[in-house]
């Protein structure tokens, strides 16, 4: 709603916050929205959720602009590009809107009173270790990512590459292929990779859509067990692939927590209280062995809330 005054700072009215997702309709961001909504309800905050239909800064920019026009007190945002989103966010900042970065970040350190995200470099390294272990430290490994210029997945790739280079000389690294965050595209890439390198040993997919697509290609190809795969995120389809034995490990983030903490920080910022500039959240390695444990079940991404 447009009911509020759009007033500044922690005045009398209800605090109004808008969450701008990186991509509407992706489980990671929907789970984040769920967490944010729950926290907003708890704190009596009015929360709006918006998001582009593709993970694309030219689509996210007009959304940010209209959100700014609707004058919320604070905006939680997962910027879709480290550079391109600086200008619209600067404008938002100039309008006095408190900006909290959730998940992804931009290059300008002056933007984002608080930055809440997984330690993605570490997550990438953990993925490398898990994959190396699965394939016995040798063979060909391929990375499927979304697009260059996204802070989170770029960091995961960096973590993965550094770890492989540093500690797993037996693995021959085939490099990164970009799926444009499209499930079908990711699946095609893996299909072709299988044909090209029938001895492919392992795949690391850096986010939810890439992993879902890559996993379905492996499942279709009937390469169960031959090609090992580690994927970032823990969407419902991914968990199913894990249980089906297509995928060996998932690096689950805590999107719900990220959303909830984002709302807390936003409220603090609006009320002029102390904000925490950087909040790293945990990542958990989910495998077939631990997936049924209640504490792991809890962190799997939700299919709606």
């Amino acid at each position, binding site marked *: 709603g447009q009911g509020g005054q759009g007033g500044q700072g922690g005045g009398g009215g209800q605090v109004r916050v808008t969450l701008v997702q990186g991509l509407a309709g992706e489980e990671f961001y929907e789970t984040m929205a769920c967490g944010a909504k729950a926290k907003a309800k708890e704190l009596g905050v009015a929360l709006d959720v918006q998001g582009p239909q*593709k993970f694309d800064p030219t689509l996210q920019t007009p959304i940010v602009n209209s959100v700014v026009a609707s004058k919320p007190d604070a905006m939680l945002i997962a910027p879709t590009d480290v550079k391109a989103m600086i200008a619209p966010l600067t404008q938002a900042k100039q309008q006095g809107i408190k900006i909290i970065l959730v998940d992804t970040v931009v290059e300008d350190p002056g933007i984002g009173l608080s930055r809440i995200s997984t330690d993605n470099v570490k997550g990438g390294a953990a993925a490398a270790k898990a994959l190396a272990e699965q394939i016995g430290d040798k063979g060909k490994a391929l990375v499927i990512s979304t697009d260059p210029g996204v802070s989170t997945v770029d960091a995961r790739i960096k973590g993965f590459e550094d770890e492989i280079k540093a500690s797993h000389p037996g693995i021959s690294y085939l490099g990164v292929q970009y799926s444009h965050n499209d499930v079908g595209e990711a699946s095609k890439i893996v299909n072709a990779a299988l044909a090209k390198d029938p001895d492919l040993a392992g795949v690391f997919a850096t986010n939810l859509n890439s992993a879902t697509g890559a996993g379905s290609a492996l499942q279709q190809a009937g390469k169960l067990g031959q090609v090992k795969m580690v994927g970032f995120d823990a969407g419902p389809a991914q968990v199913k692939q894990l249980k089906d034995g297509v995928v060996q490990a998932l690096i689950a983030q805590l999107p719900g927590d990220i959303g909830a903490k984002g709302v807390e920080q936003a409220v603090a910022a609006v009320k002029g209280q102390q904000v925490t500039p950087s909040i790293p959240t945990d990542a958990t390695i989910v495998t077939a062995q631990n997936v049924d444990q209640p504490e792991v079940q809890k962190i799997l991404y939700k299919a709606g809330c």
Partner: protein
Amino acid sequence: MKGVRLGDLQVVWIGLVLVALLAAFSILAPTTFPTSFNLLNLVSDAAILLLLATGMTYVIITAGIDLSVGGVLVFSAVAAAEVMDATGSLALGTLAALVTGLAWGVLNGVLIALGRIPALIVTLGTLGMSLGGALLLTGGVDLRAPTDLNLGLGLARWLGVPLIAWICAAITAALALVLAWTRFGRHTYAIGSNAEAARRGGVAVRRHLIKVYGLAGLLAGLAGHLSLAKYGITGVSAHSTDNLQAIAAVVIGGTSLFGGVGTVAGTVIGVFIPVVLQNGFQILGVRPFWQQVVVGAVLVAAVYVDQWRRRARDQ
């Protein structure tokens, strides 16, 4: 210059281009490209797109266009998943996919034929509506297929070829015959060639258009169901380029965007050319960015060869 266009000979040249591509990749990558594993992959990647492109062929022959197919596909997949989830019945789920697909298609047809709104606008609108609707139904996240579907139909094979590919091939073949040999097909061409003449000739143009868009929707619904079986998810964010892919396949296959001419056989080839190019260059290890460049260039060259031969024959 229009020249002689009837008969199915027109498909021959572009078909030869496809054969040439297959031969070239087989020579360049003899141990990896022409393997049954890879070729089956190709077929199975192309199968679902084939359904969409076949429906699109009918639509484009009427001088229309359907941008909504990807959205309808997703909506139908969601409908199927929810129905199967609620009832536990795979059959009801299939039915749900088909019915919702048909419904969207008929809505397109009604708006285009009765509302006389340009097809591009109508289907752009229903693309947004169906995708948004699907996301509303699911709360914005992908639904999973029931395991029996995913591991059943999704993995089933017959004579070593995925069942899904058989289904798509059978339907495509049937619709190719319908287009070429039946009254329904004849009226489809007539409307695209000269809608006013068809109307004056007593063809129920509006009703026929509704049927054609309904058919495209029905096929998109089936595609949604098969894609749910194949990938195990509803793919809410995965089908944004389906429309352009299907349209490109149709045009590569020699169907004119201005309507009146075209064949399903051409479309089949048009579906495979980009798929083969993509797969072949990936297998050859061409760097991803070069792939885009090369696929683009070869696509233009392939159609050029086709046009050029066709023109030579016509003169």
